[in-house]
C-alpha cells in the first residue's frame, strides 16, 4: 500500500499543471482517486463526509454483480456442453464459459471507459466513475451470440448520446446499460432475439465444439417458448435439449438467456448485498416484484391462453425480471427519488414488464422496455409526490391559521 502511495506521489508533479504530461492530468487523477480515497473536503458550508464516495459506491455494485457474472460464465459453458451433448467437468465448463464471456466484458469496458476518458480530457474535468457499473452490466444483459463489434458500437452510442450529451454521470435520464441493449435490440434484431443467439456454438482456442448439436436441440429461451406455445393448452417449457424445465432450474438459472440474467439465486446474493449496504433501495425492489405479481395474477384470473396463465413466481424467475429489479430499476440516478415515488415507480416497472411480455410477442423481454419507460416518468412521479406534499402541508397551515 505504502509503496503504491509513494509511487503515485512521485508521479504527481509530471501530471500537475506545468508538468510534462499535464494534458493527461485527469487520467492520473482518475486512477489516483480510484486507488485511494481523496482527502479533499468541501469548500462551502458545513458537510459531513464519510469515506464512501461515488467511486467506492460503484465498486460495491460491481462486487454485487460478481456472483451473476460467475454464474453467467458457468451457465454459458453449461448450455454449450449440453447442446453438443458432451459431459464436461465443472472446471472445463466454467473455463469455456470464461473464454466466451470475457471478451464482452473487455470490449464493453474498453469502449466505454475510453470515451469517458476522452470526454473528460476535452472538458477538462475529473473522470467520472459511472461507467464502472454500466460496463459490467452491459455484458451481463446481452445474449452470448452478439458479435463484439456490435457491442462496441452500441456502448459507444449510449455512452455518448444517453450520458455525455446530458452532462455525464448523474445527469442521464435513461439507464446507460439498458440503452445499450435497446440500441442493439432495435438495430440488429436478428442478433438480439430469436432462437439462435442464446447458446454459443463456437470453439475458443480448440475448446468446445462448433455447430454440432445433438438431436432435439432448441435454442429458444423459456420466454420465447412461452410465446410460441401460448395458444396450446398448457405451457411445456424445456431446456436446450428438450427436457422439461423445473422451477428449481429456473431459480438456479440453468436455462438459455442473456449471460447474467438467468440465475435468480446469484442475482439475489448480489442484490441483497446492495440492499444491505444501502446502495439499492429495498422499496423499489419489493415494489417491482409486487407489481409483477399483481399483473400476473390479473392475467391468471382472466387467462384466455396458456401464456397468460403462467404463475407469477415463474414470471419472476424467467427472463431479466429479477436482474432488472435488483440492478437496473434501482439505479439511483434514473429511478424516482422521493420515498413515496419509489413505491409507485417500482410497482409500474413490474406491472408494465409483465404486460409487455404477455401482450406483445415481438418483445419477449418486457423488463428492458418497462424500466426505460418508467425512467422517463420517474421525474414526473417525483414532481407530483412533492407537489401533493406541499399541498397537504399548505392545507394544514391554513387550518391552523384559521383557528
Amino acid at each position: 500500500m505504502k509503496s503504491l502511495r509513494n509511487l503515485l506521489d512521485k508521479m504527481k508533479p509530471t501530471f500537475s499543471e506545468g508538468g510534462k504530461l499535464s494534458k493527461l492530468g485527469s487520467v492520473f487523477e482518475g486512477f489516483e482517486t480510484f486507488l485511494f480515497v481523496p482527502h479533499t473536503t468541501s469548500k462551502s458550508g458545513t458537510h459531513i463526509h464519510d469515506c464512501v464516495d461515488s467511486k467506492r459506491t460503484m465498486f460495491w455494485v460491481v462486487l454485487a454483480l460478481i456472483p451473476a457474472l460467475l454464474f453467467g460464465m458457468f451457465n454459458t459453458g453449461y448450455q454449450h456442453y449440453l447442446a453438443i451433448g458432451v459431459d464436461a467437468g465443472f472446471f472445463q465448463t466454467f473455463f469455456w464459459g470464461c473464454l466466451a464471456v470475457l471478451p464482452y466484458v473487455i470490449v464493453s469496458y474498453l469502449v466505454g471507459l475510453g470515451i469517458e476518458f476522452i470526454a473528460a480530457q476535452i472538458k477538462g474535468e475529473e473522470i467520472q466513475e459511472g461507467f464502472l457499473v454500466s460496463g459490467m452490466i452491459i455484458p451481463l444483459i446481452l445474449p452470448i451470440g452478439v458479435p463484439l463489434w456490435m457491442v462496441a458500437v452500441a456502448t459507444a452510442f449510449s455512452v455518448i448520446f444517453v450520458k455525455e450529451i446530458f452532462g455525464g454521470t448523474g445527469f442521464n435520464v435513461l439507464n446507460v446499460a439498458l440503452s445499450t441493449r435497446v440500441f442493439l435490440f432495435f438495430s440488429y434484431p436478428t442478433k438480439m432475439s430469436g432462437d439462435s443467439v442464446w447458446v454459443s456454438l463456437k470453439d475458443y482456442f480448440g475448446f468446445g465444439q462448433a455447430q454440432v448439436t445433438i438431436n432435439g436441440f432448441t435454442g429458444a429461451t423459456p420466454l420465447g417458448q412461452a410465446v410460441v406455445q401460448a395458444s396450446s393448452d398448457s405451457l411445456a417449457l424445456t431446456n436446450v435439449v428438450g427436457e422439461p424445465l423445473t422451477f428449481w432450474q429456473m431459480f438456479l438459472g440453468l436455462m438459455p438467456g442473456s449471460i447474467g440474467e438467468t440465475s435468480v439465486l446469484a442475482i439475489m446474493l448480489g442484490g441483497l448485498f446492495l440492499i444491505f449496504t444501502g446502495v439499492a433501495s429495498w422499496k423499489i425492489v419489493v415494489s417491482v416484484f409486487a407489481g409483477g405479481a399483481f399483473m400476473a395474477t390479473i392475467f391468471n384470473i382472466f387467462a384466455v391462453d396458456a401464456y397468460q396463465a403462467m404463475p407469477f413466481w415463474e414470471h419472476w424467475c424467467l427472463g431479466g425480471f429479477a436482474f432488472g429489479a435488483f440492478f437496473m430499476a434501482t439505479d439511483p440516478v434514473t429511478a424516482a427519488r422521493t420515498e413515496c415515488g419509489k413505491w409507485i415507480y417500482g410497482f409500474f416497472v413490474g406491472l408494465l414488464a409483465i404486460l409487455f411480455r404477455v401482450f406483445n410477442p415481438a418483445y419477449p423481454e418486457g423488463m428492458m422496455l418497462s424500466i426505460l419507460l418508467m425512467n422517463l416518468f420517474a421525474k414526473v412521479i417525483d414532481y407530483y409526490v412533492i407537489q401533493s406534499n406541499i399541498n397537504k402541508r399548505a392545507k394544514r397551515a391554513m387550518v391552523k391559521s384559521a383557528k
Partner: protein
Amino acid sequence: MLVNPISKNNPVIVLVLGICSALAVTAQLKPALVMGLSVTVVVAFANVIISLLRNTIPARIRIIVQLVVVAALVIIVEQFLKAYAYEVWGQLSVYIGLIITNCILMGRLEAFALGNRPFDSFLDGIGNGLGYTLILVIIAFFRELLGSGKLFGFQVIPDCLYEAGYVNNGLMIMPPMALIVVGCIIWVHRSINKDLQEK
C-alpha cells in the same frame, strides 16, 4: 438573401421548422432530394405570388389566401411528380400533400413575402428551400448509408464487409434516428458558428 438561409438562418437546424417531414422522408436519399426540391419550388413561387399580391390582400384573411396559393402550387407539384416520377411519388405518399402545412412555407410567407418585393422574395424562397434540401440530403445520406448500405439505391458497402459479419443498422431506418442525426448536425453546426450558441 440567397445564402443566408443555407447556413446562418437555416430553416431546419436554426429555426427548427419542418422537422416532421425531415424525419419522415429521409430514410433514403432519393425521396429526400425530391422532397427538398419540391419544397424549394413551392416556397419560391408562393413567395413570388404572395409578394405580388401583398398590397391587395386584406390583413384579416391573409392566412386563407396564403393557404390557397400554397395548396394550388402543391397540387401542381404533386401532379408533376405523379406523371414523371411515379415511384418516388409513391414513396413520399402523403408527405407531398403535407407540404401545405410545412411551417417553413407559412413562416417565409408571413415573415418575408408580405413585406418585400417579388424578386427578393423569390431569392429568399430559393434560399430557404435549398437550406431545407441540404439538411434533408445530409440526414438521408447517413441514414441510407448506415441503414441500408446504399446511396441513391446503389449498394456502396462492399459484399466482403457483409461476409465479414457487418450488418446494416435497423435503427437507422426508423424515425428516432433521424432526430438524433439532426441533433448531431446541429451540434456540429453550432460548434462551427459560435455566435449561434445559446447561453
